[in-house]
């Protein structure tokens, strides 16, 4: 299977070349249809390794470092992530067969799109540090090219610049982490890294670098700032891939280093991961609530969901460090389940936002409204995605959150007091972020799709094409399937979990009524299927009885609105007025939100003005100082560019002498 997957990657790269060579009229269809086909093959290959139908034995290609070669290996963890990547890639490609036709400059998107897919697939297959980092850079740079595809927009250029800086920083951190993992002998193969022993200090340093490298790509607060700028700037199917899939590749990198290569870890590392996860989940959703750009809102929700995944990973680290394998299996399964879930519903939501963008050319929710009447199918799919991401039963988002909560409830068994107290607090943050996510998606769906159209473009919107709709409905169906029959997903995850913590969750398919149980001794259970059947039967029966006995006559009339219906759509609640109570409760502290009202004096006919100011403390506290330092340093170092040749030679001479002196003293 390893060979087949490498051939898939080669297929992606061939498609990139084809995108340049093919005539413009067919390039879009060929590239996306081709990517769809390749992604499907890769999905089947990855899933068959995960489910044990095939093996992914190591394959060494004679490229890369001459004494090392390029190692590729597909174990259960890689197979799971290959499946997630390929599933997202297949849906995004299919969506783009229709959506990509709107693209104004296809030659800026098409060559990079398959490369991006190939890069992501290679990262999760790589089994030595060199091929891992090269693939990682393929992924970063091709996605950067896609972010700046619409470079005419000033904001997109800025987003691209910040993304590039952060990607380079992240890659540097990973490079150093792998360098430390490889040790002085340069054992760059993953197998050799697993075998070598390290001091605790070195392990801590590796973990910190991995958190910076993988965390910045995944969007951990406070390294998240680039993400909500870059993800929305790309075309919508690429946004779906970046948010839904690329962040998962970063999660894979973290799992691979923290749970596999650098293990075993001390228990206190789990506290850092847990605290970062909790902070990320709440901050992500609070940022999202303050947005009125639909795609940026979705990108901030990616930050939130990454936080939820890291909470699961932190719990798994804590339980594993204390030898509680059963609880660790539960926490890790929850995290991996959420990886799958988030890739499903986030892709779905980005597809929906792409459909809205295609129909109205508008990302600002304040200019939309009432689209449910114009785009009923898109609205339905977006509603399903919103309900799933808000962790509402019986859809899939709730299952992984329920499992995370169950893992949190097992935390009193942990011996360390720090963890005992931290985990309930993180649980509160998780509950808070779930509730705020529901609030945020009431806002996103309500302001975009419900109410009255706020502008004429929204009133004239039309339903999107059938390719896009099929991709959205396929993912809607998968969200429902993973929510109704979670036991099968958990069983599919078992090999990956077993590989990492040595034990899986109890056998789920043996439970009555397709319910799931967290650990063997627990009486807690949840059955999405039963809940769904109950709600469907009671709801259907109610509708039947009410219509039979009470009649179904309806009359249409103007809105009641307590007797004062407002004539203009401008009096509706907007996204910022909807979020005002939450901004007032949380924002005054988190964002230093200030509201100012400017009332003209009596008699003056000037309009009153209301302004809200928000401050982004992550930007001001972390990014801006670094940026200004770099600016200052490069201004000073700029002088070095304009020296004479004599001075350059002198510089080289002194540098050489200095380094030789250091070497001599070192020996």
């Amino acid at each position: 299977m390893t060979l087949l997957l490498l051939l898939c990657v080669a297929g992606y790269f061939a498609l990139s070349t084809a995108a340049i060579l093919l005539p413009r009229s067919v390039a879009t269809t060929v590239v996306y249809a081709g990517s769809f086909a390749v992604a499907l093959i890769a999905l089947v290959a990855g899933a068959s390794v995960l489910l044990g139908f095939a093996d992914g034995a190591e394959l060494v290609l004679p490229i890369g470092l001459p004494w090392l070669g390029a190692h590729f290996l597909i174990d259960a963890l890689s197979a799971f992530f290959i499946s997630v990547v390929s599933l997202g890639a297949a849906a995004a490609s299919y969506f783009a067969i229709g959506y990509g036709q709107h693209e104004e400059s296809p030659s800026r998107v098409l060559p990079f799109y398959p490369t991006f897919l190939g890069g992501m697939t290679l990262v999760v297959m790589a089994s030595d540090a060199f091929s891992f980092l090269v693939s990682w850079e393929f992924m970063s740079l091709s996605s950067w090219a896609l972010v700046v595809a619409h470079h005419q927009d000033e904001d997109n250029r800025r987003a691209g610049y910040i993304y590039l800086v952060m990607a380079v920083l992240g890659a540097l951190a990973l490079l150093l982490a792998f360098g430390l993992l490889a040790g002085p002998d340069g054992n760059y193969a993953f197998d050799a890294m697993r075998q070598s022993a390290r001091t605790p200090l070195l392990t801590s340093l590796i973990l910190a670098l991995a958190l910076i490298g993988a965390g910045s790509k995944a969007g951990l607060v406070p390294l998240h700032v680039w993400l909500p700028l870059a993800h929305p700037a790309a075309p919508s199917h690429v946004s779906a891939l970046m948010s839904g899939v690329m962040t998962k590749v970063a999660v894979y990198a973290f799992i691979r280093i923290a749970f596999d290569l650098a293990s075993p870890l001390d228990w206190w590392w789990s506290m850092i991961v847990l605290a970062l996860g909790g902070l990320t989940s709440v901050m992500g959703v609070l940022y999202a609530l303050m947005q009125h750009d639909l795609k940026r809102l979705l990108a901030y929700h990616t930050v939130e969901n990454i936080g939820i995944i890291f909470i699961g990973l932190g719990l798994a680290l804590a339980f594993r460090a204390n030898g509680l394998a059963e609880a660790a299996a539960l926490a890790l399964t929850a995290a991996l389940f959420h990886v799958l879930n988030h890739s499903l519903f986030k892709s779905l939501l980005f597809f929906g936002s792409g459909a809205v963008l295609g129909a109205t050319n508008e990302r600002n929710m304040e200019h939309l409204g009432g689209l449910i009447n114009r785009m009923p199918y898109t609205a339905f799919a977006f509603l399903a995605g919103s309900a799933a991401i808000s962790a509402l039963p019986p859809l899939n988002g709730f299952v992984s959150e329920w499992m995370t909560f169950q893992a949190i409830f097992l935390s009193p068994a942990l011996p360390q007091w720090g963890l005992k107290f931290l985990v309930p607090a993180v649980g509160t943050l998780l509950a808070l972020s779930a509730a705020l996510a529901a609030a945020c998606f009431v806002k996103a769906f309500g302001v975009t799709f419900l109410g009255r159209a706020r502008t004429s473009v929204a009133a004239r919107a039309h339903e999107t094409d059938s390719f896009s709709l099929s991709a959205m409905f396929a993912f809607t169906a998968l969200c429902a399937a993973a929510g109704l029959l979670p036991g099968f997903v958990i069983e599919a995850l078992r090999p990956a979990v077993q590989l990492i913590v040595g034990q899986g969750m109890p056998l789920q398919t043996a439970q009555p009524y397709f319910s799931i149980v967290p650990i063997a001794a627990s009486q807690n259970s949840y059955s999405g299927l039963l809940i769904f059947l109950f709600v469907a039967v009671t709801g259907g029966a109610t509708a039947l009885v009410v219509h039979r006995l009470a009649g179904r006559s309806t009359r249409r009339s103007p809105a009641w609105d307590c007797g004062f219906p407002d004539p203009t759509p401008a009096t509706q609640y907007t996204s910022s007025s909807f979020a005002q109570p939450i901004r007032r409760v949380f924002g005054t502290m988190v964002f230093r939100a200030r509201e100012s009202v400017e009332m003209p004096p009596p008699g003056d006919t000037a309009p009153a003005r209301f302004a809200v100011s928000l401050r982004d403390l992550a930007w001001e506290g972390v990014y801006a100082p670094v940026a200004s330092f770099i600016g200052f340093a490069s201004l000073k170092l700029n002088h070095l560019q304009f020296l004479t040749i004599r001075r350059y030679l002198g510089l080289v001479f002194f540098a050489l002498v200095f380094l030789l002196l250091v070497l001599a003293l070192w020996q």
Partner: protein
Amino acid sequence: MAVILDLISAVAQMLLVLLLAPLLTGIVRKVKARLTRRQGPPLLQPYRNLARLFRKEAVLAENASWLFRAVPYLVFALTWVAAGLVPTVAVDRPFALAADFIALIALLASARFFLALAGLDIGTSFGGIGASREVMIASLAEPAMLMIIFSIALIAGSTNLSAIARFMSSHFNVEVSLGLALVGFIMVAIAENARIPVDNPATHLELTMVHEAMVLEYSGRHLALIEWAASLKLLFYVSLLACIFAPWGIAEFGAGVSASTVALVSYLGKFVLGGALLAFFEVSVAKMRVFRVPEFLGAALMLGLLATLLQLVLRSL
């Protein structure tokens, strides 16, 4: 055969909560009226109101979408299922494994999600104000509820309501953390049910409405379903309170007729008492401003956190 019996018991429980729910609303209204020295409507008035609403035609705003028409059925079904899954008369009923404590709370969150969307559907400012305040209150109530669930799960060792009820009726002892959790639970329940002091179910002053503003555009059978769902939600919380903090008398599933009768009578007693206590509480406090609600719910969260920490410390002594 066993499946048929299971289904019959499930249907019986569902019908029990469905038919009792309006009575609870009637009890609260009656006791409130008597406490303020008014005659008050008859106990069965909520049933009459529902019947009248069901007979009327439903008036829809011109731009109402399919979602607006579907939401009453969805909210009713979700709330009804949640209320039906709480152990009332017997523990460990069939299908009790469908949802634990967390899943039941999440079912109500689903209902609220759709109701808030319906509030936004017509595009009126009252619908918007109701929806935006409702989600703000919910975002504070849910973490508080989770902390309370955590402390109860620490005490009883499970989030399965039947297991909690069985543990509480056999191992009950007065604990500080249980008391803290009880107070916090009641505070959250008051906020979730839109009762005084968080919201006023009887208000007619638009700017103070939260729940009522959200459903302002509903009429006829749709309004009847939403009001019934509100009664069911109140019954859900009273049943939950009875099941966790006062499970005495609750029977095992399949226990004999006498045990079941005792359980039913004790449940009805708790039911009436719960309604009366709520009415008493409501007449003794004043409604608070919307932006005082975060402090109220923050206090509930702190109580839950304190209960959890106390348990953690106690268990390791």
